[in-house]
């Protein structure tokens, strides 16, 4: 009986403390059981592999018994052994063959409440951080025989599991081809977040997101039914929906669940909020410093009165307040939840009030800054609301130099830019008239 060589059986594997290697002897023959104790379920190994071994008289019988266990694979050749070990398989090395039995620990991840896109009445649970569970959630929500699931890996180092789901009957094969090409081109080492995947698949420097990241399983199922491709990344509770056009980012799932008397005005409100959050600071600078005829007489006198205490030009005031609100938003995201509310109170209420009383900003500017911040939160999808936060700054600069004409030109340029964008070959500003009927 020759001694067992770990390096020979599993090439490329470095010794590690959680690597368990045990020799199973029967009738002067021996097999080797290898697994990573941190990844595998010991109880399961005991009840399946060990019990099978216990009941056998020789190795051939044991080998045959192993094939009966669920999750059995025979490793024929190549260097797949280490791969299997790292994915939670237990290896049984026979003198002439290697068997792999899936013995992964059950995932502890549970679906949490939807946090980035909550709605009041509708499905409340989001995806979990476990890929298998997420695929299961989608299969439950979208029990179609056409639903196709493919697995791949992304990231040269992290080798994160990525599931590609689509409805074979509805999907456009061009999008799949395009996606395959882009996935092959990804060179990132460590991929850990859905937003990161979205960025890697689309252009990094685009102003607007062209793939939609959501934590809502119902939105994902709806996307599938519309023929979209869904990407699920292991370890994140989000799905990536592609292609996605501008209007997708403005729709909340509530719109499909409630009366049009309510949802249509709300949709209009969202577009108005987008206009306010992007253009209001710029319009303030333009109207106050170039075109005061824009205001009603009483308002003009009041603004002039409240501006009279402010010693510097209007755009300094705007930049100062925008900096404050952006800093506040950023701080309340990073801070722990308990301190977050204190930060907003101190920053928003006290500082705003004090700045106005000290004559650093006019009272109208406080209203503008807060309505810009509030309107930004109306946008349902987070990535789009980040884009909108960004856009207001170039517009303010346009207003600074060219007044109202500059603002209008700036907005026009952004619309032209959005019209030139493509999301996986689909025009970004395309309208889908009549399609909404199917989702009701």
């Amino acid at each position, binding site marked *: 009986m020759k001694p067992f060589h770990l390096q020979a059986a599993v090439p490329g594997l470095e010794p590690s403390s959680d690597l368990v290697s045990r020799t199973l002897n029967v009738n002067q023959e021996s097999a080797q059981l290898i697994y990573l104790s941190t990844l595998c379920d010991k109880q399961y190994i005991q009840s399946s592999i060990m019990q099978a071994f216990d009941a056998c008289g020789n190795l051939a019988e044991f080998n045959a018994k192993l094939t009966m266990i669920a999750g059995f694979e025979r490793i024929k050749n190549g260097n797949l052994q280490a791969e299997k070990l790292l994915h939670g398989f237990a290896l049984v090395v026979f003198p002439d063959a290697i068997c792999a039995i899936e013995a992964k620990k059950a995932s502890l991840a549970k679906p949490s409440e939807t946090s980035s896109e909550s709605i009041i009445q509708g499905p409340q649970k989001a995806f979990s951080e476990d890929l298998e569970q997420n695929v299961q959630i989608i299969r439950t929500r979208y029990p179609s025989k056409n639903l196709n699931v493919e697995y791949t890996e992304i990231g040269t180092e992290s080798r994160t599991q990525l599931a590609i789901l689509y409805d074979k009957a509805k999907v456009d094969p061009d999008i799949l081809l395009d996606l395959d090409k882009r996935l092959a081109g990804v060179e990132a080492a460590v991929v850990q977040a859905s937003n990161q995947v979205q960025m890697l698949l689309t252009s990094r420097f685009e102003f607007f997101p062209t793939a939609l990241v959501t934590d809502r399983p119902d939105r994902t199922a709806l996307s599938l039914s519309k023929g979209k491709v869904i990407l699920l990344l292991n370890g994140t509770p989000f799905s990536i929906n592609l292609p996605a056009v501008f209007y997708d980012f403005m729709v909340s799932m509530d719109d499909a669940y409630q009366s049009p008397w309510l949802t249509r005005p709300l949709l209009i409100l969202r577009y108005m909020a987008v206009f306010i959050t992007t253009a209001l600071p710029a319009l303030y600078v333009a109207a*106050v*410093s*170039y*075109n*005061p*005829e824009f205001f009603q*007489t*009483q308002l*003009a*006198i*009041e*603004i*002039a*009165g*409240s*501006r*009279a*205490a*402010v010693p510097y*030009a*209007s*755009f300094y005031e705007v930049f100062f307040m925008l900096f404050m609100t952006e800093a506040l938003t950023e701080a309340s995201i990073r801070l722990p939840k308990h301190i977050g509310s204190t930060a907003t109170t101190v920053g928003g209420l006290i500082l705003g009030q004090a700045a106005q009383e000290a004559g650093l900003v006019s*009272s109208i500017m406080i209203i503008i800054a807060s309505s810009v911040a509030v309107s930004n939160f109306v946008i349902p999808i987070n990535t789009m609301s980040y884009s909108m936060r960004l856009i207001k700054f170039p517009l303010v*600069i346009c207003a*600074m*130099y*060219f*007044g109202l004409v*500059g603002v209008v030109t700036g907005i026009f340029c952004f619309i032209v830019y959005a019209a030139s964008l493509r999301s996986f070959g689909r025009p970004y500003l395309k309208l889908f008239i009549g399609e909404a009927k199917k989702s009701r």
Partner: protein
Amino acid sequence: MKRGWIWKGVLILSLLWLPGCGFKDIDRRFFVMAIGIDKSNHANKPYHVTLKLAIPFTKIQPGKTNAYQLVSDDGSTITEAVRHMKSKVDKELDFSQAKIIVIGKAMSAEILQKGTLDWFLRRRDIQSAAYMALGDPTAEDVLNVKTGSERFPGDSLFLSFDQDGTESSFIATEYLFDFHRRVTEKGLDPYMPVIRPMDSAYLIDRVAVFDKKRLKAILSPEETRIFNALTTDFQHFDIETKSKTLQFAIAVQHFKYTYTIDPSAPALHMNIRIVGESEESTETLYKQPWSYYERLAERQSQTRYMHLLQKLQALQVDPVGFGLRYRATRYQRDKDWTAWEAMYPKLTFHAKVQIRIKSSGGIK
């Protein structure tokens, strides 16, 4: 090479501290609320221009925040006067909120000259929808009034003329664009409401009628109401009827008139239809059938309409636009206008008023 880029970046960033060239903050501007044009005593500088400048306030309070600064200057043109006035104030003059132009009574003939009116029309920042009015005795006196209910200087005047605030049948509203049109259009003559200052208030109950050259007459308040109804279709007036035994008033709810011109007579037939509600009466309106009161009111208002129409004819002015209607319906190049000019002084008016009393008001 790399250093060059850094310098260019610093240069571009430094631009962020500077605004564009037209940049002037709202608190560095003086809002002109009203423009007044009077006749000065100097022969070579006939225009005495007065501007009412608003002093800004943070919180508007009626009667307290209507502080203003009045600046005036003489000039041979309005432009010259305004240019020189800029040296008297510390902020840039902004005409974008100037919603009323008051012309002094002595200046009334000059404003009809093309050049004078042009200044208001050609300036980008003066609105075409600004109100025109005649100041009696002078425009400066009108601008120098501070009423107790004003929220900002000039507010009272704006509210009097737009139908936003008071809706009075005595106030005739005239806009700059309409005035200009009436000055140039054949067969449609200009008019202007007359503002008279009364210690810390205004009285606007008369209207001045012009031909194309000068001020012809100022109508009485009673005539102004009829004038208002005919020129602007003003709906909210009332009709007083008096007889030996009885006096009652009808509040008009609906007013409509049509007219036809018969060139063969020559005559103008006017049909006026009024629907109203009796508002105040010295006797119960059930002693006679309503048609009795209706006929009584019809007869009396008919004479009022006839009186005004004949007065305008005698003054040789046509603010209602009969001539324009004639030209529009009987087009013959220039002949129609000469025909109308000959016809208008000979025209006989036949006004037929139909009044219907809808109800006798509510009972509480």
